[in-house]
């Protein structure tokens, strides 16, 4: 029961960090390469938020995630 709360904490903190970082990177890029347009900032912030969202979702899904493996079948017994 506690890890739900912990997950949420992680989530929120993670999203905050990522958004801000994205924002910063976007601002940097906008200043450096894109002639102080506004769109890279929004872009960066969105990217950051999106990454945080995805991480959060993955974290919540983790108990239910199934990992499938592809197994190649070798035909050794047909030759005998």
């Amino acid at each position, binding site marked *: 029961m506690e890890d739900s709360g912990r997950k949420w904490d992680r989530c929120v903190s993670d999203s905050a960090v990522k958004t801000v970082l994205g924002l910063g990177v976007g601002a940097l890029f906008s200043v450096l390469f894109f002639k102080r347009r506004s769109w890279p900032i929004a872009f960066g912030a969105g990217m950051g938020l999106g990454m945080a969202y995805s991480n959060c979702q993955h974290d*919540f899904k983790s108990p239910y995630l199934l990992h499938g493996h592809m197994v190649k079948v070798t035909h050794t017994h047909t030759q005998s």
Partner: protein
Amino acid sequence: MLRVCWKGANAAARNCLCGKVPVHPLQHCRRYTSAGNSGSAAGKIVAASILTVGGGLGGTILYAKWDPKFRANVEKSVPYSDQLFEMALGPPPPPFIPMQKKPVKAEPLQISSVSEASKDSKQPKAKSKAKEKQPEPAPVDPKPAVEEAPALPPQTIEAEECHECASHEPAVKERPGEEVAARLAQQDKAEQDALAALSFNLEDTLGFSAKLTLQAIGAQEAALTAIGTHTHRLREAMDSEDPPDKKSAQWRELEDALSERTRAVDQAGQSLLQAKEQLEKLRVVINGAKESKIEAARPQILAAEENLHSMIVDLDKVVTKVQAAQTEAKIVSQYSELVNEAKVQFQKELSSITPEVQANWKGLTGKLSADDLNSLIAHAHRRIDQLNRELAEQRVREQIRIEAALEQQKHEHQRAVDSAVDKAIQHNHEQLRLEQEKKMQEVREVMEAEMRTQLRRQAAAHTDHLRDVLKVQEQELREEAQEALSSKMMEQETQHRRLAQEQLDSFTLDMNSAYARLKGMEEAIDSHVVAEEEARKAHQLWLSVEALNYTLKTAAADAPTEPLEGAVRTIKESCAENEFAQALATALPDESLTRGVYSEASLRARFYGVRRLARRVALIDETRNSLYQYFLSYLQSILLFEKEQEAPPTKLAAQDLDTFKLLAYATYSIERGDLELAAKFVNQLHGESRRVAQDWLKEARLTLETKQVVSLLSAYANAVGLGTTQAP
């Protein structure tokens, strides 16, 4: 169909769009031309849709009419279709029920009842031998049997039969044996009298008729002789040439003979008549005797008949003889008449020619002259010629007459032959009948004799059968008596033996009981000792279980109890040889031993937190847990209002497996102190809610287990303690 409609709609729309006005913008086109075309197109669409819908309905109804299963299916799937079907087609066909076979059963019952009734009616009449008689012919049989009884000579059998038949049918008038015998005797006597009277009568008439017949025959014969003499005399008179006085004497004799003859004939006729009358009377009497049907008189009747027949035959013979004689006499008399006539004629002629010559011309030969002689001779010659002519004529006529006479004679002969044949046939017939009667009589006598022998044989067989039956009965009775005797003896013996055995048993019983009491006392003392030991042990067990219980109570608000290891160890020590307690002690979960368990109160407190969290993640299950879902489920938990506590139903239905409901039930149970039920409900959660409540569930399980084991142990200890404590 939908596609067609759709296409049609499309086509219509396209037409309206790209029709006669291509250049105009769409809106205009729609405004100007859609008003015109769309009306008809819409009408077409409406009509098409109505047609299809109607067609579909009609088709469904028709098919449902044909196939009842399809109808049932449609009724199941489409809500109000059964009403529609009922309106259109009438009620659905009922399922097939096999007809009861009651009416068929009724008939055999009736028949059996009838047969039973007939059997029942036959029952009271069931007796010994002659029971093959049916109930219906039985009333008919005794009556002719009784009537024919007089014909049976042995009266004993009659009496017996009548006894039987009397007892057979109470419906028939009952005549006791004596009355029957008296009646039979009476009948016999009456018969004898009748027979005697009849035979007397018969003999009388027979004698009389015989006498008369003989008389008639005699008279006839006398008549015959008279006729014969007369004829003879007549012929003699015709043929003889006697002198006149002898002739006259002859003629006188002839007359006498004639008168004699006539008299005899008359007498014969009279006596014949009398005889015939008497014979008729005799015949009447015989017929009367025949009708009286007395058997014994038969031979007499037969003899009388024979006599009658012979008399008739004789009479007839004699009558024929007389008739023949009469015809002959007639011939002769005719002949004599003719001759007389010729003589008279000649005499007349002669007297006419020679008037002076008188009667007897033979004596006149000397007195006559030559002329007279010549004339006489001439007359004689003429007469001779005439006579010759007449003779010739007569000869010719004779031929014809002879033929006519022959014919007549033939007819008469034929008639006579016929009558004679008839008479002969009649006589033969009569003869044959008499012979047949005689034969019948003989046969009857033979049959009577045989019947008597058979009856005698039957009587003998009956006596034999009776003897056998009596023997068998004797045997049976003897066996019965023997059996009764032996059974009684055995009974007495068994009783005696039983009494002896009882005495022995009671003595043994007393001894055994005394011994058992002694043993019981010893055992009681031993068990007392054992019980004391047991009691001590139980007491110890109980103490240790109490210690365990106490350790359970040491749970703080949020901390678990102390580890239960120590208490469990003491329990194990205290009841080392008690397997049940050992098993229970080992059944405690390890966690409780090492770590201790949480108390119920703490679990209860914790539950509310779990509940809140579970509500929040209610929508999350294994398949969909994106953050958006989390948001949604959080929203749901806020917006969904429901009772916090809800009483759980006795049976959990599928709709109760909703998270919120389950949590409500669990809350209710926990508030009422039923941790087990709450745990059960929490166990039903799915997905994320379940995962969230998992550790709470684990703790609850541990607590419940420990509590269960401890309660078992305490119960056991209590039971053992109760068992071993002794009342003061």
